[in-house]
């Protein structure tokens, strides 16, 4: 019944997208686990891990697209929600190390012993249990989004001003998490994880399971997002994006809608961060850096805003390119390339890669159909 309602709104591109995810979910693990290392179709474990990382970025991009593409809230601080979800998972993983750390302290993570701390800070309690840490992955980013959004949307902060304070939010967290006194490992962050739910984080099987989970979560976020944007809720979001005061005078409490979608989006970003951390093996304050959040905006713009699929596509495409370029002689120029991509998409592809693909196939892009270039829309 519920599943039927959720799936009812999925269009043709949505079906193609879900089929691609289904293929990614089955083929990659099969080719990794079932083929011998020497086989030409073998997918090495490091590639599985890399793909898992891209999928986490895709979830982050999708969450950003919900608020930016549909509701016009250009968040330049979504990396903060991703990082907080990541830290919640990181704390759980730290507590799983137990006495196997360098200092062999059964209660305190290594960095606390190093700082001469005698006992676990109160906010670390409970994180040894997955049943506590996993809800925190949603609750911590969700609460931050709730508090921040409540203040910002109630005061009717919009446009560039809102973007600037989201940026300030993530920057403030970056500075805070750098401090050793904060109790999150300072500059080094949380790392040297040993196992997750009893399995080694380095293990091939664990890697494959984490990858598969990430793909499933991406599919789930897409289906939920697709249902929401197709519902009256999504229509109100678009109305707010296009004519906020009209929406208000129709009797809608715009701030409630913005808050609802912002919190939901922050929770999705938090899950993405939590899946990311065990796959890359570290979480440190650099995840809060404003540049990360801006990069996520570029992924969404490249893929195509207001499409959900485009955001996911853009995240994978840009990061694939990043991996290829930063491992070769082009490495020093990556940021120039990223900047050039952002400019090119702004000027030539207002509907992003997905818009391009759909217009090639002959279908109409479902994305934003307004003609104004991206820059003016950001300035609005």
């Amino acid at each position, binding site marked *: 019944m519920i599943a039927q309602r959720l799936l009812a709104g999925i269009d043709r591109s949505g079906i193609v997208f879900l089929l691609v995810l289904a293929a990614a979910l089955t083929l990659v693990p099969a080719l990794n686990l079932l083929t011998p290392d020497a086989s030409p179709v073998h997918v090495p474990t490091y590639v599985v891990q890399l793909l898992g990382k891209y999928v986490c970025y895709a979830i982050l991009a999708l969450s950003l697209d919900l608020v930016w593409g549909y509701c016009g809230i250009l968040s330049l601080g979504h990396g903060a929600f991703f990082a907080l979800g990541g830290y919640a998972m990181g704390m759980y993983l730290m507590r799983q190390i137990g006495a196997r750390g360098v200092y062999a302290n059964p209660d305190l993570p290594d960095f606390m012993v190093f700082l001469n701390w005698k006992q676990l800070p109160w906010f670390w309690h409970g994180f040894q249990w997955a049943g506590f840490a996993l809800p925190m992955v949603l609750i911590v980013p969700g609460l931050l989004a709730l508090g921040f959004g409540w203040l910002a949307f109630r005061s009717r902060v919009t446009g560039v001003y809102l973007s600037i304070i989201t940026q300030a939010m993530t920057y403030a967290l970056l500075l805070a998490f750098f401090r050793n006194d904060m109790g999150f490992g300072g500059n080094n962050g949380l790392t040297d994880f040993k196992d997750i739910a009893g399995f080694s984080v380095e293990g091939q099987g664990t890697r494959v399971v984490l990858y598969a989970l990430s793909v499933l979560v991406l599919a789930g976020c897409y289906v939920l997002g697709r249902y929401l944007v197709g*519902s009256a*809720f999504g*229509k109100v979001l678009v109305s707010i994006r*296009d004519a906020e005061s009209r929406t208000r005078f*129709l009797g*809608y409490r715009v701030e409630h809608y913005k808050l609802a979608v912002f919190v939901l989006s922050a929770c999705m970003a938090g899950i993405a961060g939590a899946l990311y951390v065990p796959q890359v093996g570290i979480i440190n304050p650099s995840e809060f850096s404003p540049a990360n959040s801006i990069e996520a905006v570029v992924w969404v713009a490249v893929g195509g805003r207001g499409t959900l699929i485009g955001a996911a596509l853009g995240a994978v495409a840009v990061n694939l390119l990043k991996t290829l370029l930063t491992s070769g002689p082009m490495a020093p120029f990556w940021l120039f390339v990223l900047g050039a991509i952002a400019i090119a998409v702004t000027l030539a592809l207002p509907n992003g890669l997905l818009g391009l693909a759909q217009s090639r196939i002959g279908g109409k892009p479902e994305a934003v159909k307004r003609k104004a270039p991206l820059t003016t829309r950001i300035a609005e």
Partner: protein
Amino acid sequence: MAPPTAVVSNPAVTEAQLYLDGVSVAFDGFQAIKNLSLTIAPREMRAIIGPNGAGKTTMMDIVTGKTRPDKGDVLFDGGRHDLTRLDEAAIAELGIGRKFQRPTVFESHSVADNVLLALEGPRGPFAAMFGARNRIAAGRIDEVLARVNLLDLRAKRAGDLSHGQKQWLEIAMLLSQNPKLLLVDEPVAGMTDAETEATASLLKEIATTRSVVVVEHDMSFVRALGVKVTCLHEGHVLAEGPIDEVAANDKVIEVYLGR
């Protein structure tokens, strides 16, 4: 809901749909509205004229909750609601609909979806996610669209409508809210003569069941409406009465023709 106000014994208040008394508002020292008093009866249609800067739009901003007056009473529905204490959404819910000067519809939605969002009913995020707003019958939407002759265009993107059609769609959206009072800002700006005529008769028909306040520059349109006219100037009422009387008023002529 706002508590009943103290002045409800005054018949000027209790018999009015909209009651403004001694309203003033200033922006950075500029007195946009100066001691404005105005009463609109239930099912009355009133035309408001006045030169640029007379305070017409600011008056609508005050009634719809966008601007808070510095002083004065703004009461609705026989004095039952003090509009100066409510925000836009609450005022819209009480039954005040507003049409903007520039037609403002949701351009990337279909014509039918524009009406779907405007129709009476719960307006919270959860009702819109999983609840009542998703179960609105197509018949209700079509009924409204038929009244403004847009039924054939129900699937069209609102942004692709002509200027006049957008104006009508916006009026249709206001009607869907089932308001007690409609504030209409320059409804015929940019319309053809035929469209203007159709709009006049539509507004007259609407005014048989609810109050309508029309702000308009087009004098022939105001004449066609044939209702009481209020002329605003520098934020207060300069003259009030039938159009011929107001148009013959020396002060009105001076304001319009310059001194």
